[in-house]
Each structure stands twice: as C-alpha cells, then as structure tokens.
C-alpha cells in the first residue's frame, strides 16, 4: 500500500493506535514528539514511519517532559503537533500541559491508559487517568478530553481533537486505553476532501506588533505565531492580553484565570458529544465511556432483549463534564450504574450532577483492568430492580 499521502482513503483492518496516528495526519498534524511507553508506543512508531513522507517531523525525545515541551515549541511556529503517552507519561507532562493551557497553545495529547498507579501493569487497560488530565496540573484550568470506544473513533476523535485544539487554542486529550490502542478493527478513512479541518486564526501581518492582543479572549484571540514579525511574547507567567507578564497585581491573575476558564466554559455546549440509547423508559441506566461505554451499550441491549428496562449513556466528551446532558438523560432513572475501569473517577461528578434527582453507583469490573463481563453487570442490574 503506497503510503506517501497524508490521507489514504479506504477501509482498513487497523489497530486503534495506528488509527489514531492516521487521524492525526488526516487532521494536518505534521509534528510529533514522544517517548516510548507501553501501550502507546505504536502511535509514535506509526508517526515515525509516516511523517517524513508528508514532510512532517518526528522526534523521539529524551523523556515525556521534553516531548510535551517540544510539541508546544513546534505549535508556536504554526505546526499542528501531538504527543502520545500513558499514565506515567501524563504525570511527567503535567507541568507543561499547564503551560500549554496558560499560553493557549493548541496541541493534542493522547493518553492510552494502563493499569496504575505507578508502574502498574503496562499492557492492561484501565481508566485511571480521568481526573489526572482534568486536575493534575496545578491551579485552576479547564480541560477538554474525548474518549474513543473503537479503532474508528480513535481516527475520528483524533481529527476532532485537532480541530477543537485549533478552534479553542488549548491542549485536547484523547483518553484511550490499552485495549482500544491494541485491538484491530475495521476503520474507514474518508477521502481528504471529506475530512473537516480547522486551523487557528492569526493576527493580520504588517500592523503594529505591539498592538496585537494575542492572548486572553473568551472568544479565542488570534495566535501570534513566530516568524511573522509579531514580536510575540509567550510566557507561562500571569500575563495580559498582549502577553506581557504581570506578577504583581492580583487583578491580573484574576483576569488571567477567569478568562482562560471562560474561554472553554463559554463554548462548552459546542464541545459536547454523547451517545445514548433507550433512556426514556429506563429504570436502570448504564453510564460508561471509552471502551467501557461500548460494553455498557452492548449489555444494555442485552438487558433489553431480556425484558429489563435498561438504557445506556456514553459520554464521548469526558471533559468538560456533561453534567446538564447527564441530568437530562438520567433524570427519570431509578438508578445509574457508572461503569468505569477504575474505582470511581468520573463517579463523583456523575453523583454531583444527579444529586437530589437520582442515585448513581459505581460499577467497576469484577477484576480491575479487565473488561466488564455482561453477567456481572446484569447481576447488578437485577439486584437494583428487585
């Protein structure tokens, strides 16, 4: 198969990690910096093979900290950039993730989650980093994350992640896991003309560089990338709309934090993607995301076929949290079983959204790190219904 085009349309039997890499290329990614880590390394390997053919740049950095740094540096030259890692790598990247948020740098960070904490089991899936990507870096900030449930979604949501990052000038996470990353499934790649691409807006060139306000607009300031005479000043210090540092006035910090936050929350509705089924008359709802969401859907259908009033909600956007959407979908259910491959990381957010309305309970797999078994979930459903 000739692989010199960025987008190779067709139907393929493809590994999730490979589909993610192809999605990145389709979205216009031309810079990847990463560090090997199971179970994400195939993404780096694929990018290493494919990027030179499309005049992109691949570099294996010395660690995850510098990988995140390098993709930010590249983004400031105008490139669409990406890294891919797992839980331990996210832990290392957190400081620079905060830097990307604070400097409004578009980039994509793929987290193929594995069994943790600490070294854990590298090749076993988990959903252990859900809160880490939301709150792991210091300070107040918003995060955007999508959770694919299939190799196809690894492609589609990576394209969406880049477009979202470019639109809102912020890092965007793909929350996958070892199972999705490594499984092989049919993936359809459309022709290049059918792939939506969003690119950041830039300030107009040729004007007064010192008049450019390239930061801190709730409606996303134009990005004064390097090499255009913008004399851009990019700093992680608290700064104003001109990028000028102010580490003296609390009012400057207030403006800095609130504007960065509002930039995301203001556009929250446009970020929401969700799948749901049979929620109207469900007494028990299965709520799951990522690959677990796919299990939730399958088990919900199986329960229905057995006459049980069950439905399913699968958030695709996991951050910002779909509180309003979950309230609307789950409000009539007697119980929501929150299926996660962890000890309840999204659970408190679901419970807070449904407080006073209905009860949400955790339902991890019988054995953490393995997939939910239908029998186990059906047993829990029957227990609620009895």
């Amino acid at each position, binding site marked *: 198969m000739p692989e010199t085009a960025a987008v190779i349309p067709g139907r393929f039997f493809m590994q999730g990690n490979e589909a993610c890499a192809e999605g990145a290329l389709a979205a216009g990614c031309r810079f990847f910096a990463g560090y090997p880590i199971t179970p994400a390394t195939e993404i780096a390997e694929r990018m290493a093979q494919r990027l030179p053919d499309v005049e992109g740049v691949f570099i294996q950095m010395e660690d995850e900290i*510098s990988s995140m740094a390098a993709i930010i*540096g*590249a983004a400031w030259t*105008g490139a669409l950039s990406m890294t891919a890692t797992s839980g331990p790598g996210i832990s290392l990247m957190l400081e620079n993730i905060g*830097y990307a948020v604070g400097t409004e740098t578009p980039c994509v960070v793929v987290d193929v989650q594995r069994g943790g904490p600490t070294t854990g089991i590298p090749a076993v899936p988990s959903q252990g980093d859900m809160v880490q990507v939301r709150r792991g870096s210091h300070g107040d900030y918003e995060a955007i994350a999508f959770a694919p449930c299939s190799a196809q979604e690894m492609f589609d949501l990576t394209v969406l992640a880049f477009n979202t990052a470019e639109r809102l000038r912020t890092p965007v996470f793909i929350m996958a896991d070892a199972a999705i990353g490594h499984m092989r499934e049919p993936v359809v790649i459309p022709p290049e003309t059918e792939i939506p691409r969003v690119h950041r807006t830039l300030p107009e060139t040729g004007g007064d560089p010192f008049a450019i306000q390239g930061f801190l607009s709730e409606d996303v300031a134009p990005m004064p990338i390097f090499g255009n005479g913008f004399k851009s*000043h990019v*700093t992680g210090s608290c700064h104003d709309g001109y990028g000028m*540092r102010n580490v003296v006035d609390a009012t400057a910090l207030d403006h800095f934090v609130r504007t960065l936050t509002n930039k995301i929350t203001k556009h929250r509705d446009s970020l929401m993607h969700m799948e749901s089924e049979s929620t109207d008359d469900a007494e028990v709802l299965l709520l799951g995301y990522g690959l677990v969401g796919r299990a939730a859907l399958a088990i919900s259908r199986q329960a229905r076929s057995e006459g049980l009033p069950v439905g399913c909600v699968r958030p695709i956007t996991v951050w910002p949290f779909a509180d309003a959407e979950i309230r609307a979908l789950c409000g009539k259910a007697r119980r929501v079983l929150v299926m996660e491959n962890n000890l309840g990381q999204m659970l408190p957010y679901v419970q807070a959204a449904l407080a006073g309305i209905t009860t949400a309970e955790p339902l991890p797999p019988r054995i953490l790190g393995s997939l939910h078994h239908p029998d186990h979930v059906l047993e829990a459903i029957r227990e609620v219904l009895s």
Partner: protein
Amino acid sequence: MSTAVHPMAKYLRPGKELTTACPGCGDGQIAHSILRAIDQLELDIDDFVFVCGIGCAGWIPSPYFAADTLHTTHGRPIAFATGVVLAAPDRRVMVVSGDGDLTAIGGNHLIHAARRNLDMTVICVNNRIYGMTGGQVAPTTPQGVRTVTTPNGNPEGSFDLCKLAEAAGATYVARWTTAHLRQITRAVIQAMQHQGFSFIEILSQCPVQYGKLSREGGAVATLDHFRDNSVTLRRAENLTPEELEGRWLVGELVAPTSELVSPPTSEVADASTDDGGES
C-alpha cells in the same frame, strides 16, 4: 538626547527599557553583548526566536527584546527550542538561560540537544547560584561557598559546563565572563554562524546573592575577580595544574577548525581586560 540614543535601544520592547535586574547584575551586560552581535551582523531580529527559562537570566530576552520570545517552564527552554528549530528550521533559535535552569533541572535536555547537534545557540549565564529564589546552591557553586542552602559551605563539587557540553556533543563551545563583553559578542557571532549546537558559558556577577553570601563582593569586585582569574587557552599552556586551580579557562574551547576566529590585529582591545592579546 536625540543624537545620543544608545545604539542598541532600537532592539528593545517599548516600555520595557528599565529592567528588573538588580543593580550591577551581569544580565544587562550580556543582553547588550547579544544585541551587538545581531547588530554587527546586520541580522533582522524578527528572524530570531529567543527561548528562555525560569531564573534571572530568563529575563534577558523576556520581555526586554522586541522579538519572538518563548519564556518556558523551569529547566525546559532547550526542549521547547528543539520543537521550534525542528518545526521551523528557518528560525534563528537562541536559548538564553541560567546555570540552574540549564544544567540542574534542565541538564538532561542540554546533553541531548548537544548530542543531536541541533542548530541552536545556547547562552548559559552562570552566576554560580540560584539568584532569583534568594541565593541557594547551584551545581556551579564552587565547593566550600556559603549559600542559603549550604550555610556551612557547599560540600559538593561543581560542573565544568563547557566540558559537559563538549562531552555531550556540542560542536561550538566557548566560555567568557562579563569582564569580556567584546569577546562575548564575537563568540555569539561565531555561534550564530555555526551550523550545529553552540554552547556559550558566560560567568556573570550576582552581587546581591552570590556576591554577598560568598563575600566575593559587589559588581566591581566580581568583575575584577573574573578578569584576574580568566586564563586564555594560550596562557594556560604555560601554567601548571596548580596555577590553573580555581581559575576559568576562557575562549573558544571547541570549534570546527575552519570556523576558529584568528586573533584580530587591528581591533582595539578592551582597555580593561588583560587577555594577553589572545582576542
């Protein structure tokens, strides 16, 4: 004062001419030496990306220089600069940061960028201490020196940064001090013209932290100390190891033979530097 505007003032960001550096700090001297190199080569400062880390030296280009500037997280400017130089090879990438930032927390990125021989210039401002945070020991603080985290004297040895850079693979390495500003400008010129990884260590006075804690003294005292204890390669050939102990080897320590600067004969040497006619 219209006819006496400082020739380097044109490169500064309006409203940022008064820096936050301490009185007597070497940072300003280094800033101007860099600008003079750009000016002498008649380069467009808009062709540059200055990348700097956390610490006083990071404030040399940020926000002082009116140019594209990336002020990064602590220790990481070289990593960010790697992304810049690889994604946009047409940019002139210059990292300006301090010894703590580049060789303690950032040491790993320094050695790998040198190993890769990336086309960038790294200027390491070595004030032998962590200045901005109040005078803590650094990997470059000489053994025995008192700092706020070595109140009984530094028990550890210190790096020879130029040897570190050379061993890692840097293909242009130079060391000077803030008592050698013309030489710094010449080294920066060489580094900018060099294709590959250039590392310039500049010993710089920190009168408020290092000078006080070590009892070395103020700006003038440290500049005298630098002047008296800098030894060029040529002079060093005639000195014993004991005579070289505690002194700094200055000059171009690593450079491709074709790029070595031959000592200028017509240029007026700094009246204040005793460089034995070396440069």
